């Protein structure tokens, strides 16, 4: 029997606003606990929410970026459940009238080539605080700095067919959201979180099996791993004559196992109803259209344009657009006169590895363009230019003078070199005599003199 895996993802991203969703507290990460709190996000008696305009704008742009239909009227509702890090005993979220429905994410599946995964909905909500279990022995400690942070929840259709495909979807989605300026999308900081719904069925079947929900994955790699583990577990259950139960599971990345967190019987009855504190959110069509028009160029479009404009391969365009900052850097190099075909190697090599290690861009696009020029003119070999680049990253100076200082200038014309050497030797008979007498360190002096001529 061959089993097909069916995967849908719910992704929560924190919106890149200055203040929280419904109050004026700062939306920041890493502050001392309970220092960014106010009557609203503490759920104090008498406090009331007012939605943040920028959160609505970022959510709308994210929905546009995913090709969703943005609804003229959406409604904030109360999702009722008790949890120590949920101050009001309900989360303000959107339920039956979300900000946006529909849309898709297009990407290369590792198995199926180009695929489109549908987006069911994008809605806005507030984050909960954090419960920490290792701060106070035997107790749970609650930090409400995150409570009330603005979130967009993006729900995909059950359209993915392998753990690797789920991962590729996440990479593509994150890229779109970062291009759109929606969120920092950092799983480490918790500004991007993934819940997975997964079921299995026989290949060819059209109905869905019983799904389980996986939580607590802290990286895209672990999402893929957790899906592998859960796939094996579900197959094992069914093949041994048992049934899959609708449960929520926690993934333990250390042991590589899943553990039941909550069964269906214990599942929540959230008692959603429209939040009477917040009238419907009504967006004017021309405002919604303006958000589409002012959306930054998205990865898909950028790849197409880069290929056309700079004659890049699909592979290069893909690599270059992984991070919008790198793509922007490349274009700046090109604008500064750096030959595109020659710059691409630099950008995808030295520049990108430094950037990925968190060093930013120590060599300005203009300086890299100059280095590319020096290499093109044959002044410095491709090999030597790497050392020049390293030095440029550390210190100021144009590539030519750095190459000279390091003695990396190559002279293509050996006759010229021979002539310069003869001239230098002839001009410094005393030094030549001392060198011949054993003072070998004078070789540096001669090289310097030759280089002066070559410069």
């Amino acid at each position, binding site marked *: 029997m061959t089993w097909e895996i069916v995967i849908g993802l719910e992704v929560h991203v924190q919106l890149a606003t200055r203040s929280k969703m419904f109050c004026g507290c700062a939306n920041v990460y890493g502050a001392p606990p309970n220092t960014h709190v106010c009557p609203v996000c503490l759920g104090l008696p008498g406090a009331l929410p007012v939605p943040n305009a920028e959160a609505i704008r970022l959510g709308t742009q994210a929905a546009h970026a995913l090709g969703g239909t943005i609804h003229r009227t959406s409604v904030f509702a109360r999702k009722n459940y008790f949890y120590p890090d949920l101050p009001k005993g309900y989360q303000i979220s959107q339920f039956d009238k979300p900000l946006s429905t529909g849309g898709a994410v297009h990407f290369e599946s590792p198995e199926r080539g180009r695929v489109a995964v549908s987006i069911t909905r994008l809605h806005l909500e507030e984050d909960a605080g954090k419960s920490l279990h290792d701060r106070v022995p035997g107790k749970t400690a609650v930090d409400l700095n995150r409570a009330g942070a603005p979130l967009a929840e993006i729900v995909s259709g059950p359209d993915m067919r392998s753990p690797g495909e789920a991962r590729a979807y996440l990479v593509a989605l994150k890229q779109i959201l970062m291009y759109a300026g929606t969120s920092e999308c950092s799983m480490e900081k918790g500004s991007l979180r993934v819940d997975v719904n997964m079921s299995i069925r026989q290949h060819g079947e059209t109905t869905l099996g019983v799904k389980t929900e996986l939580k607590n994955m802290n990286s895209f790699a672990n999402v893929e791993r957790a899906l592998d583990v859960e796939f094996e577990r579900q197959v094992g259950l069914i093949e041994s004559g048992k049934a899959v139960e609708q449960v929520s599971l926690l993934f333990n990345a250390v042991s590589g196992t899943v553990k039941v967190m909550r069964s269906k019987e214990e599942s929540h009855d959230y008692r959603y109803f429209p939040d009477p504190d917040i009238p*419907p959110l009504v967006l004017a069509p021309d405002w919604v259209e303006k958000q589409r028009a002012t959306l930054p160029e998205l990865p898909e479009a950028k790849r197409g344009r880069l290929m056309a404009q700079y004659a890049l391969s699909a592979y290069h365009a893909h690599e270059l657009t992984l991070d919008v900052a790198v793509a922007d850097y490349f274009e700046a190099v090109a604008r500064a006169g750096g030959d595109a075909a020659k710059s691409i190697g630099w950008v995808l090599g030295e520049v990108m590895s430094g950037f990925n290690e968190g060093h930013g861009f120590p060599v300005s696009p203009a300086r890299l363009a100059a280095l590319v020029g020096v290499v093109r003119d044959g002044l410095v070999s491709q090999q030597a230019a790497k050392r020049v680049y390293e030095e440029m990253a550390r210190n100021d100076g144009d590539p030519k003078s750095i190459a000279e200082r390091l003695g990396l200038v190559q002279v293509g014309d050996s006759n010229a070199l021979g002539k310069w050497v003869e001239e230098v030797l002839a001009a410094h008979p005393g030094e030549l005599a001392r060198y011949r007498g054993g003072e070998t360190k004078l070789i540096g002096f001669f090289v310097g003199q030759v280089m002066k001529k070559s410069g």
Partner: protein
Amino acid sequence: MSIGREEVVHVAKLAELAVSEAELPRLVDQLSRIVDFVAELNEVPADDSVPPFQAGAETTPLRADVVAPIPLARGPAQMAPAFIDGFFVVPRLGAMEES
């Protein structure tokens, strides 16, 4: 009786309200009376064309994205029944312990 003992126990659990065995019969009685009373509305015809009521402003105003929290005259430490090292503290949670 439109609402029975089991439903009252279930609803009390959802609402996180301790209800003792001793008070349950009387509570079931009173809640049934209330629920029967409000169920009177079921007799009123109102099809889907009647939109639900909306109180107050018709559309929500939005707040500018400015950091300006309402100040607290007394901080969390002074309000909380248990507060250690800057955290609100509660008894251990069962299900989420490993996260």
